[in-house]
């Protein structure tokens, strides 16, 4: 393998790790860790396998058919059901744009103590600037590389000197911690799935495959990125849960802010750790802002058959550019109302979990179409994992709203 190719693989994998963690993950992992320790780590393990399975499938389908996920959804689900999927996905992803943008602003606030609302327009300007100046690939890799600062959470877990036996025992216990209810336990399981298997990740991955011009020749690159990047992202998620558990659980602290997610790192590694964690949070939310923003443009453009793409000049994809800009402006306006971005994140990831079956089903159907996919059609392992993930996603989608109401968004 040439050095250039190896470098491309490494960067792609780094992007996948950085791209896995966004504001939803940060909030959900720290919240869950503080309240349930590692008792929901099995959900993260499942979510990683599920998103790996569907990201690989979507990448393979895009490489073979040169058609992205939302375009396939319309073809397979029919225009009406696909419109429902589009509307839901658009709403949830637009809310996430607002939350991610606020996440950038909150990271800057933590670094400077200037109120985050003052940083929101600056963050939006930075996003526009990066999109305008950097090519797609470099943009993806820049935030992927910076997002590696999040590995400080793994180091922090080590430095906190955990009782490994207790952590492992905790991870093996499939029950809520004493004092917590079963409905709350399941609500947070749904929330973790919503945060770690967001449909936008798959839509973005498949649209990115089209933007990169991937063909079946790039299958190894797709698989390396997915099979190494996502599990390492999952490891990061578990490290955030473990760090929050070790620092917050013994003294009864509940997580309500992004700032609290950085505190265990500071406790373990001091000021240097805190600064690295802030850089990581900035990079993770910045990358996720770009991904969610493009995902809204991709979704709507692919559904209606418009020209789209970050690689095109704005004038050649005018409607795509208008949609993404409009979403960004709406997100800034919503953030400036002062609405709590963490609350928005919690609701967005729970609603996102309700849309998973509509996102997964068309990809599974197309990946099984031998006439279309030929030798790249699903094998038995992909089918078994894909079907299991789809079935679980249906259970999650059906139970998400009742659990949200019953537990008052996880309060009880």
């Amino acid at each position: 393998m040439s050095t250039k190719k190896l470098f491309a693989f490494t960067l792609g994998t780094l992007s996948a790790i950085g791209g896995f963690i966004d504001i939803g993950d940060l909030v959900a992992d720290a919240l869950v860790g503080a309240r349930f320790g590692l008792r929901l780590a099995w959900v993260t393990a499942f979510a990683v396998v599920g998103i790996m399975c569907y990201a690989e499938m979507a990448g393979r389908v895009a490489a073979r058919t040169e058609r992205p996920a939302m375009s396939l959804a319309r073809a397979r689900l029919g225009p009406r059901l696909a419109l429902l999927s589009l509307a839901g996905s658009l709403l949830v992803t637009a809310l996430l744009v607002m939350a991610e943008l606020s996440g950038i602003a909150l990271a800057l606030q933590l670094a400077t103590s200037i109120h985050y609302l003052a940083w929101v327009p600056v963050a939006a300007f930075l996003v526009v600037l990066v999109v305008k100046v950097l090519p797609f690939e470099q943009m993806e890799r820049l935030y992927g590389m910076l997002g590696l600062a999040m590995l400080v959470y793994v180091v922090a877990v080590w430095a906190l000197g955990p009782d490994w036996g207790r952590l492992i025992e905790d991870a093996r216990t499939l029950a809520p911690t004493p004092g917590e209810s079963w409905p709350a336990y399941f609500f947070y399981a749904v929330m973790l799935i919503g945060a770690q298997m967001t449909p936008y990740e798959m839509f973005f991955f498949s649209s990115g495959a089209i933007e990169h011009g991937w063909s079946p020749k790039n299958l190894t690159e797709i698989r390396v990125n997915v099979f190494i990047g996502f599990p390492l992202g999952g490891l990061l998620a578990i490290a955030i849960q473990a760090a929050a558990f070790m620092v917050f659980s013994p003294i009864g602290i509940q997580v309500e802010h992004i700032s609290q997610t950085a505190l265990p790192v500071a406790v373990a590694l001091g000021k240097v750790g805190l600064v690295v964690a802030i850089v990581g949070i900035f990079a993770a939310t910045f990358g996720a802002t770009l991904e969610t923003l493009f995902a809204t443009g991709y979704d709507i453009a692919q559904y209606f058959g418009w020209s789209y793409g970050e690689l095109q000049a704005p004038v050649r994809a005018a409607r795509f550019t208008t949609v993404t800009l409009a979403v960004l402006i709406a997100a800034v306006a919503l953030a400036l109302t002062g609405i709590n971005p963490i609350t928005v994140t919690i609701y967005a990831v729970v609603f996102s979990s309700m849309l998973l079956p509509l996102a997964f089903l068309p990809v599974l159907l197309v990946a099984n179409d031998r006439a279309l996919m030929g030798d790249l059609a699903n094998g038995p392992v992909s089918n078994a994992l894909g079907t299991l993930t789809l079935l679980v996603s249906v259970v999650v989608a059906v139970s998400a709203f009742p659990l949200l109401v019953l537990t008052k968004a996880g309060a009880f």
Partner: protein
Amino acid sequence: MTARPRAGTLTGPTRRGWTVATVLLAVVLASLWFGHAPPRSPAAYDREAGHTVSLMASQLRTGVLWSREHAAGEVTSAATEVALDEAVDDARNTLDRFTGYLPPPGRHFLRTRVSEEGSAAVEQLGLMRIAAHEHDWARLRELTRQAEDTTTALSGLAEGLPR
């Protein structure tokens, strides 16, 4: 990417479709109302009180932990100021939400108790926030020690209430 042909065409929703959508919307709105409805029964009020007190204890402990880490030189002053701002706002909002509920008969004493302990916590965090913004770190250390007593009082109250 170039435009692709669209699969199928959209037709307007049927009458049945509108009915299903209306029923679904009504269920969602009713559920959301249930989620935000104030506690009516004494048991629900007690549970809300327990939740409020444990949340406030958590907010106070968060402020104490940031201040202690700052005193140990482990966190930056900017981050400590931000964390204390957030803790004060959270504690005030949490207390305001609970005291905004009308107590059911026989639960006025509980409202008074939570209000007293909660106000002490908000005041304590407020003083810590001022000390941090004035960069009066000696005063912040002193207030952090006092806050630990307030946390103990809140925890004691939380233990006697359901969650």
